[in-house]
């Protein structure tokens, strides 16, 4: 039984792998799952920054935008291969995070929230402003499909497997990060920055690195998004997207990696249930979120672990 408790994620992995074969999802439904996967990548990255390092960001969609637009522009206008463009996006995002990280992350709580929000808006208004390059408010068209080793991703199924492979890699790497000495330093900064500093942790450096890591994940998510959609517009990357990410983190259970992933999955699949209520959709989403925050402060993942511990009782302890 303990093995089940330990390796529950293998069941999850198998479920993800066989779902398209058994479930035979419609293009619409696999589209939802692909979006969910992309948002999981974003949310997991943000969790490293917020959940583990304790640094609020209301502007994470900025790096999502940088990834998406770097990929979009370089492949649609300059003939780059998608994977090369994705690499350029990652380097660009990491550099941007490195340059802005130190001054911005020196701020705390609300000031940090405001600065990241401003950063997000600056990126979006620049995208809208430089129309010639980015297509402006009406968006960037004709982004080619993604190719790996000369193989083009042509349909939903291809993208489903590709995106979810990236999701698994991202979650695995995030778990590796939080269990490493680097991750423990981040957690130390979260619980008490001054104490961490007195133990020799270079807080500014570590915070900036966590920020860069989150930016890299977001940039990858952006590239995937651009190629899957074939069309991107500034609206996809505004403050509302950043706010949605915050919601995913707290809904799923912040600081657990799996929680934000669960939150992203839930929030992206929720329209599937609530769309039939039409105009009530927004209100219902709000109420669900309020209920989770008030009654389940540890989020959906908290509920999940509680249930798991009930079903699989501790044995031989």
């Amino acid at each position, binding site marked *: 039984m303990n093995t089940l408790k330990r390796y529950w994620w293998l069941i999850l992995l198998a479920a993800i792998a066989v779902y398209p074969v058994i479930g035979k999802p419609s293009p619409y439904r696999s589209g939802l799952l692909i979006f969910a996967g992309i948002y999981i990548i974003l949310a997991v990255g943000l969790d490293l920054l917020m959940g583990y390092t304790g640094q609020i960001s209301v502007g994470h969609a900025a790096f999502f935008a940088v990834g998406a637009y770097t990929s979009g522009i370089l492949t649609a206008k300059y003939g780059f291969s998608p994977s090369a463009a994705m690499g350029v996006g990652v380097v660009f995002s990491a550099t941007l995070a490195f340059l802005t990280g130190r001054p911005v992350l020196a701020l705390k709580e609300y000031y940090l929230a405001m600065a990241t929000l401003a950063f997000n808006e*600056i990126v979006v208004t620049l995208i809208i402003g430089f129309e010639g390059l980015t297509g402006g408010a009406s968006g960037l068209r004709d982004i080619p499909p993604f190719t790996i080793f000369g193989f083009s991703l042509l349909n939903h199924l291809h993208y489903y497997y590709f995106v979810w492979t990236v999701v698994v890699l991202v979650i695995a790497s995030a778990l590796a990060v939080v269990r490493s000495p680097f991750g423990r330093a981040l957690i130390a900064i979260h619980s008490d920055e001054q104490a961490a500093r007195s133990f020799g942790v270079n807080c500014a450096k570590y915070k900036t690195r966590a920020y860069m890591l989150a930016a890299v994940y977001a940039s990858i998510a952006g590239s995937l998004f651009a190629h899957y959609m074939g069309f991107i517009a500034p609206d996809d990357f505004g403050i509302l997207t950043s706010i949605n990410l915050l919601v995913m983190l707290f809904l799923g259970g912040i600081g657990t990696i799996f929680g934000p992933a669960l939150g992203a999955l839930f929030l992206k699949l929720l329209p599937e249930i609530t769309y039939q209520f039409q105009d009530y959709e*927004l209100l219902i*989403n*709000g109420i669900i979120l*309020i209920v989770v*925050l008030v009654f389940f402060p540890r989020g959906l993942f908290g509920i999940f672990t509680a249930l798991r511990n009930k079903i699989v009782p501790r044995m031989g302890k």
Partner: protein
Amino acid sequence: MSDISHLVQFLFSGITVGSVYALIAVSLVIVYKVSQLICFAQGEFFVFGALTMTTLVSKGVPVPLAFFLSIIIAMVLGALIQQVLIRPMKNTSVGALIVMTIAISLALRGLALLIWGRESHVLPPFSRGEPIQILGAALQLQILWIVGITAVVLLLIWFFFEKTPAGIAMRACAENPYGASLMGINTQRTTLFAWAWGSGIGALAGMAVAPMLFTQYTSGIMPMVKGFIAMSIGGLGSIVGSVIAGLLLGLVESYTIGLISSKFSDTIVFALLMAVLVFRPNGLFSRS
């Protein structure tokens, strides 16, 4: 139009927009002072104020009555939210509180969608009459209302916080809640009052510009963000600072749109905010 008249016209629009930003910033500051919380649902009170008044006026309710009814409805709503949803969250992190107010704003926006639909609504001006011509620029009468309402509200707030026992109690709660409660101040009731006032002023901002704006259920987002900016530039907890910052923000926006570039005016405004946060984290007007 001559150059001068252009400059004057930009001044008018800057002051108009600036007054609205100042009001929203003040409503945020009042809540922040007693709750140490920035409420992301404040934009929704802006919308509720504007749309409630529009509906009441269109149903034939006299303008002054509609005006006060809309404010009172917003105040009750704000107090209810504080009592039912914010109060139980006392011991949670800043992040969780922010997300709670985001959740509240989603629910309120959903409610506004149900009540008023997706279409935009516009309120008739408070008083009829031709715009006044000054140096070749047109000054709409509603602008006088907006500026007048802002001035009256700010005076009342000043009077309230400086001269009345309830206002002084509220300041004490902001300063030191534990000490205030030891002095026999009912901190819970004071917090409730602050939320009611904050919501009322937010609604007032929406009502004042409703005749110049097409308001719909999503209209609250941008004014709220601009209110945040004014509040942060003014130094989170300062009413005077946020009023000056709000007006300044409106003017900067109006002149950059008019003289430099409408495309990049928001880029400039947000870059300004980042610069203030990084170089003067206690606000532009702090002494330290």
